[in-house]
């Protein structure tokens, strides 16, 4: 039996069992449909990065690190700093991640987290101007350390927490003085988070586990602040307008829970 044949048969069985369970009103792990696994955020877990955080959503763990560098600005925005997000689905984090150049899932993750943060303008890149041809570049690196489902939300949480934790290095004589800081990176406005959800059968599940993700028919991420939607990204599948609008309501509610955790920890 080919690998895919086996995967399909297994996932069909898994899907049928999951839909039966959902029809009885609960998930494999007993959660409500709109309930997250336990979420924990720890800020400042690294000494070498200017900001860092480890986010855990259930057993899914993502490390985010913030580094600053002096870079050349983009020619069409000569007085603005540069904000870059990169993600790594480390091969050690899941049997399904492979070494090699970033695949489409990895690139999508980095770009969704990037847009979620960028859209809110919580990082004011206009404060990153240093002198002509020199601005601060802010790099957010996301390392997925264990993937038990929903690395999207864990990544956004880690990225936002690392930014909350970040300090700006001192700048003297055209160079950054590493280990000395001119002050904290001040974030503006509501904190950005994402709320990742999937559809299985007729049910929408928030914060899908790995087992649930494997049988998802539709995949949707909704980035939000306390007042606005700041990213939408549909992966596989399709949905109706009504489904989108009711999912936006759920994303705001769960987003507020996540923001509470970000501020508390």
């Amino acid at each position, binding site marked *: 039996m080919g690998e895919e044949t086996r995967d399909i048969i297994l996932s069909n069985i898994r899907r049928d069992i999951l839909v039966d369970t959902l029809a009885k009103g609960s998930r494999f792990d007993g959660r409500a449909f709109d309930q997250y696994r336990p979420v924990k955020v720890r800020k400042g877990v690294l000494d070498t990065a200017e900001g860092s955080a480890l986010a855990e959503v259930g057993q899914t763990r993502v490390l985010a690190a913030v580094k600053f560098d002096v870079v050349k600005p983009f020619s069409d925005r000569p007085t603005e700093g540069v904000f870059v997000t990169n993600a790594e689905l480390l091969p050690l984090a899941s049997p399904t991640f492979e070494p090699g150049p970033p695949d489409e899932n990895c690139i999508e993750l980095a*770009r969704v987290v990037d847009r979620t943060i960028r859209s809110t303008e919580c990082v004011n890149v206009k404060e990153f101007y240093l002198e002509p041809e020199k601005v601060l570049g802010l790099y957010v690196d996301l390392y997925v350390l264990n993937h038990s489902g929903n690395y999207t939300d864990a990544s956004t949480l880690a990225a936002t927490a690392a930014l909350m934790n970040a300090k700006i290095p001192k700048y003297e004589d055209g160079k950054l003085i590493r280990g000395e800081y001119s002050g904290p990176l001040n974030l503006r406005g509501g904190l950005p988070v994402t709320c990742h959800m999937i559809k299985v059968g007729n049910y929408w599940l928030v914060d899908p586990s790995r087992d649930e993700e494997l049988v998802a028919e539709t995949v949707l991420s909704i980035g939000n602040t306390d007042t606005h939607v700041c990213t939408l990204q549909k992966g596989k599948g399709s949905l109706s307008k009504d489904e989108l609008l009711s999912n936006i309501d759920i994303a705001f509610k769960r987003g507020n829970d996540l923001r509470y955790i970000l501020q508390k920890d």
Partner: protein
Amino acid sequence: MSSSISDVQLIVDGKRLDGRTENELRPIRMEVGVIPEADGSAFIEWGGNKIICGVYGPRECVPKHDASPYHAVVKCRYMMSPFASLDEHSKSGPSRRSVELSKVIREVFENLIKTEAFPNTQIDIFIDVLQAEGGTRTASITVAALALANAGIPMKDMVSSVAVGKGGNVLLVDLGKAEDNFGQSDMPLAISNRDKSIMLLQMDGLLTKEEIVQILEMATGACDVLHEKQSAALLKFYEEGEQDDLNL
């Protein structure tokens, strides 16, 4: 999104920079059957966008381990040419952006193509942006739907696609390049023709839920207009046959 929203005035005297109203699409021209060697093909000129799409398949799946005994594998390659913008010659080859767009475009058509009818095969959708002026992913989906229909690949529904968004505090249909770069939000959508399902959904910038409700209606109206244009282009091809030359 841009952090220089205030730098560029997008609405002047109630009109957009190119004179359009909020709900107005840019001029659009579609041609079907523009690549004689392909199984299906189409070209779209949408404002300043010029995009060509060729479809091959169902054909043998390469590499073989990609094949599925249950359905055809859909593959999509969206590429921006290095000469597609007024700026400098850009790097050719896949970028992070084009990898993401290839993925979300493929995910539109995986919903629509009756892949289960062609096990062990692949269907290739090749999209090349020859000239870009904002909204290339949505124009690509609109033209790829034509190329797939032209290839005779069975689909459950047709799809049309448009980017809606907000610029100068006004909700807008079919964002142009400046509106894309300097607007407050951008929401590319693809909507299937018959059941009005959302097939592509992305958004960045800031929108309230109330704005999203309104903008979905605007997008649906625009997709209805696009669908009529798509049908007319297909009808023209099957009435008049292949054009003698490629009219870029």
